[in-house]
Each structure stands twice: as C-alpha cells, then as structure tokens.
C-alpha cells in the first residue's frame, strides 16, 4: 500500500542529499575563495536548524517567539562551558546542551499557557533580554560581556578544523533535523501542534492537553535552537552577548515567514534566502556597483536588503515555499493554467 506520506517524491531526496555533499567539491573547483562561500553556507546551516525549531513553535503551534536568539545563546554558552571548563566531551555536549536550552524553553513556555499572540511575542523578547543579562551576570563562567573563546569540536577523535569540515558536520545535522522535524509534523505531535494553532477548542475536545503540548512545543523548539547553539559555538570559536542580539531574533522570525510559516522546507529556504542575501549577494552586488558609483553611506547594503524584502513580501506574501508550490502547480497543469486572480 502506498502510504500517504510518500506522495512527496521521496526519490528526489537522496539526490538532494548527494547534491548537498557534492556541492563543496564543485565550489572548490570553481573558485579559490570557496572557504568564504562555505562559511556563509555554514551560518545558513546553523540558522536553518534553529528556524526549523522556530517554525515548529511559531508556524505550527502558532506561538510567537521573538526571543529565539536567547535559546541559541543558551545552547552555545552551555556547550562552551561544558566542553571547555567542565571537560565533558563534545559528543556528549551535543546531547546535554540542547536539553538545557529545552529546559529554558519550558521556563518560557510556562507564561505561554496564559499569554497569547503578540503578548507572548513580547514576553519572549523580554526573555531574550533576561538571558543576555544572565550571561553577563555569570561572568565567572561566561566571561561577561567580553565574550569567551570556544574550542574546536572533536567528534570521535576527528577534530573539526575549518570551514570545509564544518560544512559536512553542519549539513549532516541539518539533514537530520529536517528529517526529525518532518517526522514530528506528520505524527500525532504535529497534528496536536497544528490543532492548537487553528482551534484550541477542537484540540481540547480531541483530548489534547493544551498546557502539555504548548510546553512540549517550546521544549522541542528549544532543543533545536540549543543544538544550533552548540554548532554555533564550536564553529565560530568565539561567542559574546553581541552575537545574540534582539535583532537576530527578529531576523529568525523573518526567515521563517519569508520561507512560509508552517512548512519545514519553507523555514530552510527562507533561512538560506535571507542569509545568502544579507551576507553574500548584497556585498557582492555592492562591490560590483562600487566600480561605477562612489558609495558614501554604508547603509546602502541595509537599504537594498530592506527593499528586496519589501518587494518580495508585496509580490509573494505566501513566502518562498508558497512560490515553489505555485510553480509546481503551474507546471502540473501546464497547458491549462488558471488565470491570475484578478482582485
């Protein structure tokens, strides 16, 4: 019997995974500055893991979070302290640190039982500030606002040395995260999350304990973010409170929404789009343009970024994944395309 989950062209997935792992080799052949491109992709990969978790929370469960950079920070700092100061091996820290972030998720999940919508968003934003302050206050371990250096990751004796190694480590974890998140979404858990988002009453009438599942959603989201934090710490080798700015949290939500909330692939695409846009395309564009006009103000990059985002939202409000679905439907129906909605 063909299961209902198999309708999404599983045969392409191994090809995609292969492409992900072959990409650095192609890049290396194509350009000598491949390490720079790989580094940007690595950031995107780390953020992807976080935004997948954020999507489970905000896109699927409908609980707004504007403080996700805090979970990233908790994961990063826990792992840095555990590995470098307590002496726990990295392989173990991968499991412990996300759980710590997840437990913090429970702490912030507790107000979420009563607070909703934008109110919750702002509560989580406050949580972000509180965590930042906590990190500064624990300066004995965290180095306070000066930040702290972090050692390189070592997995089973193999040290992850440079961007090349990081790429393979990070994207392996990204693939695992996507698979786990997909599994969550199509299981009882995911249904419960979506039911909470769309109708709390129906969820309760179906026997879903709102409190338990909201907390669970925060916990899982914290796990993903904390895990991203572990990778963040051990691949950038230096963390400080400046890394985990409130604006970063807002960017995370932007990534999820640009991709299309409520879809795992959307979160991945949105993250890739924003990170590449901000760190790669716009600087390159600026370099290209600098040959012709002299740019006095450095805000030019930010302006282009905001402008592209605005155009994107106005012309594609459903996000990248929505755009992809539209294109797919377009080709499926090819000669008989529906007219554009004229309103």
């Amino acid at each position: 019997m063909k299961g209902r989950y198999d309708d999404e062209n599983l045969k392409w997935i191994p090809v995609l995974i292969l492409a992900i792992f072959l990409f650095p080799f192609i890049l290396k052949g194509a350009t000598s500055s491949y390490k720079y491109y790989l580094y940007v992709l690595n950031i995107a990969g780390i953020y992807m893991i976080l935004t997948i978790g954020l999507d489970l929370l905000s896109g699927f469960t409908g609980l707004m979070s504007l403080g996700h950079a805090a979970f990233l920070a908790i994961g990063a700092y826990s792992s840095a302290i555990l590995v470098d100061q307590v002496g726990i091996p990295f392989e173990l820290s991968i499991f412990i640190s996300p759980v710590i972030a997840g437990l913090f998720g429970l702490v912030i999940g507790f107000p979420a039982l009563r607070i909703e919508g934008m109110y919750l968003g702002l509560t989580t934003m406050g949580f972000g500030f509180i965590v930042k302050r906590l990190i500064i206050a624990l300066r004995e371990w965290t180095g306070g606002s000066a930040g702290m250096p972090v050692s390189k990751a070592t997995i089973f004796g193999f040290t992850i040395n440079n961007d090349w190694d990081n790429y393979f480590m990070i994207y392996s974890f990204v693939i695992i995260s996507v698979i786990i998140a997909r599994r969550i979404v199509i299981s009882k858990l995911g249904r419960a999350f979506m039911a909470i988002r769309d109708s709390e009453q129906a969820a309760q009438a179906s026997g879903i304990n709102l409190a338990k599942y909201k907390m669970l959603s925060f916990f899982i989201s914290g796990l993903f973010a904390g895990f991203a934090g572990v990778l963040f710490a051990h691949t950038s080798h230096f963390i400080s409170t400046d890394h985990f700015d409130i604006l970063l949290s807002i960017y995370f939500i932007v990534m999820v929404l640009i991709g299309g909330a409520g879809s795992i692939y959307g979160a991945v695409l949105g993250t890739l789009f924003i990170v590449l846009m901000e760190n790669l395309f716009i600087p390159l564009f600026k370099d290209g343009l600098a040959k012709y006009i002299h740019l006095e103000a450095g805000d030019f990059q930010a302006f282009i970024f905001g402008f592209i985002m605005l155009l994107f939202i106005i012309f594609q409000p459903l996000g990248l994944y929505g755009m992809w679905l539209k294109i797919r439907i377009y080709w499926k129906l090819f000669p008989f395309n529906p007219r554009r909605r004229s309103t």
Partner: protein
Amino acid sequence: MKRYVSIIIMAALAWIRCENRVTSPGVTDTEILIGNIQDLSGPIKELGFLIPSGTNMYLDYINAQGGVHGRQIKMLIEDHGYNPQKAVVAAKKLIEKDQVFALYNVIGTSTTEAIRPILEESGVPLVAPATMSGTMSDLSRKAGHLIFHTDAGYDVQSNVLVDYILEQNANAKIGVVYQDDDYGANVLKGIAEAEERHGITIQREAYQRGATDFVGQTGNLMKGGITDVIIGGIVREPVTIMKTSQAMKYSPHFFGHAPTVDARVGLLAGDAGEGFTSCYFAYLPDSDKSGPALYRELCEKNNVPEKMRGIYHYYGFATAHILVEGLRRAEEYPTREGLINGLETLNNWESGTYPPITFNKNDHAGVEKIMLLQIQGGKQVAITGWLE
C-alpha cells in the same frame, strides 16, 4: 669565466627573489591591499564613516608621494554593523575572496575578538584595531602575535585618571558612570585595579546603551557626596550628565575616557562642560606637533568639511602612520611575516601623531601612555604630558 659564473648565479638568485615577490597575497608590483572592517550601518556608524575617511586621507597623501616601495596602498572597507558574526563574514571575505595583505583598524571589541580565530588560521596580521580593550594586546591569547594594538586600554585610562584625581586632591571621593556592556566592563576592570592600589572605594553607577536620562545616576552621585566623577561614555552621556548636574546645583569635577575627547562635548555642554577633563593617547589635531600640522594641512588641501574634522577623523589619520611605517619596515617585497617583523622593530618611534611607540616580540601594546586634556573656554587644552 669565473665572472660569468658569478653573474649567472647572481641573476639566478635575483630571479628566485623575483619569484618570491609575487607569492604574498594582496601584494602586486604596484599595489598593496589592506582590509578594514568598520561599523557602517550599526550603532557607531558615525565612527565607521569618519575613521576610514581620515585613514584614506593619509593613504592618499602617501600614495601621491609614490606609495611604499613604489606600491600604492589600497584599503577595502567592509561593514559589520557591530555584529561579531558579520565581522567574521567580512573578515573571511577580505581574506579569502579579496586576498588582502593585512587587516587594519577593525573596530569594536567583540567584533575583533570574533575574528581572532580567523587571524590565527590564516596568519593575517591585524594592525591597530580600534578598540580600547585592555586584553587586546595579550600575547598569550589566540592570534596575539598577529595583533598590534595602538590604543591605550580603558583599564590604563581608568588607572591614570584615578591617580591624577588623587594627586590633585587626596581626599577626593570618586564615582564612575559606566556603560553596561563590554566598554563598561573594561572601564570597571581598571577602576577595580585602582581601588586596590589606593585602598579606596569608588561608587559605581551604570547606564544602558542609548540612555537619554541620567537624573537617577546624577542624584545618586550627589547623595554619595562624590567630588570627582569619571564618565565612561561617548558624547551624549557626559553632556547630559554635566547639564543635569548643573541643573541640580551639583558641581563635582568631571573626567572622561578617550571616547569623550570630542569637540562636541564642549560645544554641546556649554558652560556646564567647563573644566571637563578627558584623556587621550595621541596628540590632539590642533596641537603643534608634526602629525597634527600635516593633518590640518591635508584637511585644508582636500577641503574636508568642518563637521567631519575632529577626533575620529584624526584617529584614522593618526593610526594610518603606524600601518605605513610597518609596511615601510617590511622587506621590499613584503610578506606578512615581514610586516610583523617590521612592526616589531619599532622602538620608541615618533610618528608625530602618537607618543613614542614600541613593539617587540614580547610587547604588542604600542601605546600605554595617555595625556589629560581639559575643556577651557570651550576648547580642549592639554594639561599634562604623557602619563603612564
């Protein structure tokens, strides 16, 4: 015969040296590429604009004279928006893609700390990071041997200020107002050292980045009977604090760290700012040394607008001297090691803009001297020589 052989050997040697010339990244026969990472879109974008402008003014001057060893110095500027993550991206771009010879004047403490691992990995030296963190020149830290720090740390500044205050008035009660971030943490580090050395306690008052209101802090200083206040702010904070205390009829002596050496402090604070004492680690743009004189001359020549001239623009100009001197002292066909070795030969070197600078294998803190300046009649006047 012997002559021919020796000529051939000489030619071969010259050829080998020629081969060596082009291997160093960022250096061609006509150009040296330098990378600079500034905050062009973040909270201190004003500095991100002014400092490189000053640097470029000096580099243009040097380039017009034929450059260093016949090479023009070209500086590429990237933005980090005061975000360490973006600083790393920018550094990677400069080093991997643009292939710069060296990094220079990266601004901010956390941002500079964040690119340490990259410096270590790629062996690119960083000359004159624009941060006054005291631990920047610590050689035992990662990439320590690659960083040449030319700013006096905030801890040094705090120490000197406390020493000076106690010298003037042994019974002074000192208070400090600090920004509650890494800037403040560095200030407090020096304050704690000074407390221990003198056996005094200093009242601490915090404020948040971007705060507009200092009534609470000023009131607290007043209640604590503080006679000498050290302000670890930039421009807005000393101005507002001095105006607030004037309104509250509270008149202690005010002191500030290097970022407060801005002509606008005197301008904005008016008579409330009279007597405000700040400290700086270079000669002021209007002093009569050779560096400042050149600065004024170049400003006139390039028609630099009046609002751009000032301590930040000058700072970019002043630190560029050290970079250029380092490049001069590197070999004729510079390598990164050559630049490092060249800079490490500086021994009490007078740039005209800075106090005598010394770098060697064991010391990468070029300047640990500061000079106190006081606002008198709305203008900053040097009131001491170099203090250590």
